Each structure stands twice: as C-alpha cells, then as structure tokens.
C-alpha cells in the first residue's frame, strides 16, 4: 500500500485515496473545434510512462480534495504532490529506481 502525502492532510494510506489517472489533460476549450481524433486523444489516449508520472489523486476518504502527484511507476516513489492550481514541479533527476 502506498503512503501518499496529501497536500492538506499529510501522509495518509493509499486506501483513503482514489487514483484519477494522468494529470494535466485539459478538456478542449471548444470541443467542436477539435477533430474526432483529437477528441479521442483527450478522452482515451494516455502517456502511460514507465518512469515518472504526473497523476491525479483524490483524498476521497479524507479532505475530498483533488491534487496532483509525481510518482514513479516502477519504484512507486512519490517525489512530490501539489495542488491542482500549483505550478508543475520539475521531475526528479534520479531515475526513481532507488
């Protein structure tokens, strides 16, 4: 079970959270100005990286707030969490294996 630092509640167990998938996928401002393929990209296509991943979490059994995290998809290390409206912190320089 992961331990996840909620920006508001601190370090809490994973079972209190809901994973929201990849972060920073904005809904197209004007959906009718994009092609079907672009709409599919927004809806379905995901980076799914092996390595550092910016993703969304919701502290569902806690403060119920959404936030973003930088987590490594192999080591599961969480390098940072940040509020939805905060600037994206840079990705860590180490490869996350350690």
């Amino acid at each position: 079970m992961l331990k996840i630092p909620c920006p508001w509640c601190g370090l809490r167990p994973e079972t209190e959270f809901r994973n929201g998938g990849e972060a920073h996928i904005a809904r197209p401002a004007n959906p009718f100005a994009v092609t079907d393929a672009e709409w599919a990209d927004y809806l379905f296509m995901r980076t799914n990286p092996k390595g550092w991943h910016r993703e969304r979490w919701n502290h569902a059994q806690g403060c119920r707030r959404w936030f973003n995290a930088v987590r490594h998809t192999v080591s599961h290390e969480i390098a940072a969490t940040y509020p939805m409206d905060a600037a994206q912190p840079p990705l860590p320089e180490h490869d996350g294996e350690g």
Partner: protein
Amino acid sequence: MTKFSIVSLVRNALSHHEGWSAQWRSPEPKPAYDVVIVGAGGHGLATAYYLAKHHGVTNVAVLEKGWLGGGNTGRNTTIIRSNYLWEESAAIYEHSLKLWEGLSQELNYNVMLSQRGVLNLCHNTHDIQEGVRRVNANRLNGIDAEWLVPAQVKAFCPILNISPGARYPVEGATLQRRGGVARHDAVAWGFARGADARGVDIIQNCEVTGIDVEAGRVIGVRTTRGAIRAKQVAIVAAGHNSVVAQMAGLRLPIESHPLQALVSEPLKPVMPTVVMSNAVHVYVSQSDKGELVIGAGVDSFNSYGQRGGLHVIEDQMGAIIELFPIFSRLRMMRSWGGIVDVCPDASPIVAKTPVGGLYINGGWGTGGFKATPGSGWVFAHTIANDAPHPLNAAFTLERFSSGALIDEHGAAAVAH
C-alpha cells in the same frame, strides 16, 4: 524437432534422458528480417508460429527483453473461456477456445487444457440481468453457455456457500462447460518450439530500444544487441505496449496496472471448477499440481512494478472466504503481480497502426491468456496480408475516434 510421445519418452528414459535436444535454438540476431515481433510472450510466439505455419513467412525474429514467456504469460491465473458479450469479442475468443481444444496435438506439446467449466457468479438483480443476457448472446453465437440457479450452482461446485444469509448471496451463475484452465508456461514453450522448428529466430535477452520509421513506414528496430532491419514490425509486448509504441511516436489508449495473483499450498483435489465473481472480485481454480490459483483485483494506479499492495489481496480474501468458508485455514504460498494493459472498453487492439508496416496487439487487460492462440492466429493474418482478418477487424485503434467501442466490462470479470 523430436516428436514428443510416450514412445520417445520411454526411449529417452532408457538413455537417461541424455538424448533430448533443445526445444528451441538460441540464435544470434541476423541484420534483417521480413518480420520482427517485439515480445516473446504467448501472443508473440503464437503470432510467429502461425505466420510460419499458415502464411509461409519464416524470416521472422521474435525479440524478447527477458526470457520467453516471462511476462503476463507466466504470471496469470490461466483461465480460458469464450463467454463474452458482443459478437466481435465472442467470435475472437471462441476461435481461440477452439484452437485451445486442439492445441496439445497441434503443437505436440501438452498444454494441459483442463475443461473443468467456468462459473461466473451473480449476486444481485443487475448481475442476473447481465448474466442472462450474456448466456443468451453466447448461445446464439454458437458458444456453449448455461444459466444455473443457485441449487444448480451448488450441485456443480458443492464447496460454494450459496446461503441466502450471505451478505451478497449467490443468486445464480453462468456456466461455460468448455471453459477451464491450462498450463501457462507450456503454451509459450509449445509455440516457441513450433515456431523455432519452422525457422523463426527467438532472441531472448534482446531489448528493443527504438523503432526506426522513415517516410511514415517502419524500417527496423534498435535493440540492446544491435540494429535489426525489418519490413514489418509487430508490437506484442503486453505490459509495455505503451513504452514500445512510444518509440514509434504512437500514443495508445492504454494504462498499465498491477494485477496480483496468488497460489495456496498444494492440496488434494477440492475445487472442481473455475469460479469467478465480478461483484465480489474473486476468481479461483485449482491447478494440476493441486494449488488453488486465485486472482486478486487490479491496483488502482499505473505501474510497471509487477507488484501491488497487500490490501488488494486482503479485500479479495474476504470475498473468497465468504464464498468458500472451508478455505479459511488454507495458506497463501506465493503471490506475484503482472502488468495488465487496460483499454477503456476492456477490449483489445489487434490492428494496423498509422505507421506503415507497424502493427499492434495489446490492451487485453486481464483477459489475454485465454486469447493466446486466437490472438496470434489473427495477428499473423493481419501482418501477412497487411489487413485484418474479419475476426479482428473491429479491434482497431480508430474505434476510439469513431466511438465504436466494444464494451466488455461485464464479461471481463475483473474490474478494469
């Protein structure tokens, strides 16, 4: 290739088993192939086998980062069935099941298919509606399917607790008698041996690090053992499809999640069939060796770590004990995690890509093992003809743009 039989076994026993030859070669990669298959799991090896056998394409390399059959092929709970809802899925899974039924003889390799039946339990009105719908669809698709009321469920699997007092009582089940389990490693090894005998190079410890594309067409791959030119490249790297596709600039509608499984210590026969329950997240069978093989749920987050959290196993164990109260004193002997590539509609992609000569076969989620021979069969056809077979024509990447999804969340039996 030595033909396997009781005769060859006895003959070799007399010579202390020193006369057996390697089941496949360990060749050095050649500079160029007609077809390079990325990933020597069951699907990749089956693809190579059918390319060679049915399409005469033998100048083929299967490149494997680790050891063949070491990904999801060697990490799943080996359930085989074809009772999917939609015509498109039913057709490809049923084709696969039919291939399974003759696979030991086809490959001259005993894959130990055990058609002990698969029960999908229903626990509420909604489950029943979905189950009956699927049974009816299966039957009209020519797939064996039965609806069992609780007493019939109990008769088929007497150790199941069908007490109406349970928190979520068993209110019925679908049964596919032809479903069952198989020996997972044997499938990879059988296809590897068959493909190798037909001239396919299986190259292990060879990681693909890049895909070369020129003028919208694939021309080869780069690997940890050098560059290899190829007229066609087929990605079948379950667990890492997004990573490999990214090398050709492709984004996929796939997320990779840990899926855990575990086995008990070996027991004398106790579990007569395969039991799956979508509502309470359980699937369990007993292997030929006597271990109970139990699937847990999918961890919620993306991961390539081949491991998940204990709480997922604990949740699923609560459900197991509810259904099988006599299992409580048994013990978990080994647990492990696979990486499942999950598509939004719980259906796979077996298709051409926007890059010429590049093909993708992935996104099978939790259901890939059962599809192994069928998936290889249609993928070989797709590569050989540069066009899909009718059986996989619907499993395109384009469906995500057009909206023609094939939603199999109900039949997938594990929450995706």
